[in-house]
């Protein structure tokens, strides 16, 4: 018997609204369609009415999880236009390193969030609660550094808005020690647990060829064996100064996506330690005045926790920009969902959709 099974826009397995139509033959999904736009807030349109400093505040509100990545991408894009007109324009190194530290702390809390949700969906609630307990330690440190648990307000055009004191740096290192021990335990539990393996191995397969064809990005692509990582392929904000690797896993299923994120946590911890140990002395920004941005255009890519985030800005030399284009990793990974769903059971649909670590608020802007 064939049915069309609707999932969403509101569904317990989804933190945010999206609508999927599953075409089924009995329990098996034969095809699927995805519809987006339920969280559209017109942020790109609004950005045309604001100056460059006001826009940092606006773009941070695109997403509550990866807000720093949005502010960073916007700042890098604006700085790119300014550097094209004035090649001597450069962000102070200390400001760059603080941006990196915030980016990696954000990646850590985002990956812990996703691992917790995945565990909850597969019914492993005790480990879900342990994972989120440790995520709180990261949130506490983010609050200590920035004053906020989300929407940190740490980025400005030309650097960072707040410094990291020696005392805070010591607290970050202490937190990293705790998180590292837990993450290693988590890795061993996830990779060795039969329940996790039964619910995730061979589920929601996205082959390397399909990932390439559709253009998946970030941990989702790396879990399909595609070695892409903007931090290494096109370094920004001083990432070229740090030693770390791409976490690629070839299994192409939900299990592979779990493995990649757990391993990336280890790399993020290493990057933060390197940044804190080698934090350069000097200013953190180039002043707080509203920048005068010349006419031009620039596009930047940032490795947000969920993958490649792209910002493009067009300016005409005025107080406001003329066009801001924001495209988030979910916009590039969501088209892979129908391919992953085909041939799987309806019961796994929630897990498969969640496995791309979707952020529909981001995607809809």
């Amino acid at each position, binding site marked *: 018997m064939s049915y069309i099974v609707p999932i969403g826009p509101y569904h317990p397995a989804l933190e945010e609204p999206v609508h999927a139509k599953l075409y089924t033959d009995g329990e098996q999904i034969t095809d699927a*369609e995805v*519809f*987006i*736009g339920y969280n*559209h807030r*017109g942020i*790109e*349109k609004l950005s*045309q*009415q604001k100056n460059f400093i006001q826009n940092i505040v606006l773009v941070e509100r695109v997403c509550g999880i990866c807000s720093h990545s949005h502010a960073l991408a916007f700042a*890098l894009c604006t700085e*790119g236009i300014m*550097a094209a007109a004035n090649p001597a324009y450069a962000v102070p190194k200390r400001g760059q390193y603080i941006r990196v530290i915030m980016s990696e702390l954000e990646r850590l809390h985002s990956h812990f969030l996703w691992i917790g949700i995945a565990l909850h969906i597969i019914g492993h609630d005790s480990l879900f609660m342990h994972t989120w307990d440790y995520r709180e330690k990261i949130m506490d440190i983010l609050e200590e550094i920035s004053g906020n648990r989300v929407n940190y307000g740490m980025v400005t055009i030309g650097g960072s808005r707040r410094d990291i004191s020696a005392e805070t740096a010591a607290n970050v290192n202490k937190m990293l020690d705790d998180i590292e021990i837990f993450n290693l335990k988590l890795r061993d539990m996830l990779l060795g647990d039969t329940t996790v393996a039964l619910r995730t191995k061979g589920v929601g397969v996205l082959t390397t060829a399909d990932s*390439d*064809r*559709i*253009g998946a990005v970030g941990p989702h692509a790396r879990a399909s064996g595609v070695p*892409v990582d903007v931090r290494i*392929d*096109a370094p*920004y904000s001083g990432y070229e100064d740090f030693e770390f690797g791409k976490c690629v896993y070839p299994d192409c299923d939900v299990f592979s996506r779990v493995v990649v994120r757990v391993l990336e946590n280890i790399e993020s911890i290493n990057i933060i330690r390197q940044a804190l140990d080698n934090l350069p002395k000097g200013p953190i920004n180039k002043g707080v005045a509203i920048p005068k941005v010349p006419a031009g*255009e*620039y*596009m*930047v*890519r940032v490795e947000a926790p969920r993958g*490649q985030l*792209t910002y*493009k800005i*067009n300016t*005409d030399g005025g107080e406001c920009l*003329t*066009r801001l*284009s924001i*495209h988030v990793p979910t*916009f*590039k990974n*969501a*088209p*892979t969902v129908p391919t992953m769903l085909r041939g799987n059971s309806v019961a796994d649909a929630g897990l498969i959709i969640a496995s791309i670590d979707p952020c529909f608020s981001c995607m*809809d802007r």
Partner: protein
Amino acid sequence: MQEYKKIMISKDEIVPTAKEMRSKNVHLAMIHAFIDKTGKANVSYEYEIGGAIHSYTVEGENVLPSITDIYDLGAEWAEREIMELMDITFEGVDTSKRLFMPDSMLSGQGHILVTPMDELIEETHKKPEELS
């Protein structure tokens, strides 16, 4: 600083360029579009080549060929989004279902990126019975 290079192309060069890029396994980072203050359309195909972005840009054309048969859903979603947000059309893309804007908006409606802000605010404050 990431490298960004703009290359102007004509409408006829869009498909051959996409085919060449696909054959070299070049990632299409995104398709960007905007309508400038003079009403001129500007569409850029952003390819990632060796860590740099090569932005192949077409200006002044509102109807363009689709590259969805070359870059699949990665291009289709970008093209559909552009079609729904501004007055630019990609030939051959299915517009019978909305990707981004509400289903109730017919083709040609909902181009919020080119609608003046005053009109959008006025529309937002209309009562349900006043909505067209």
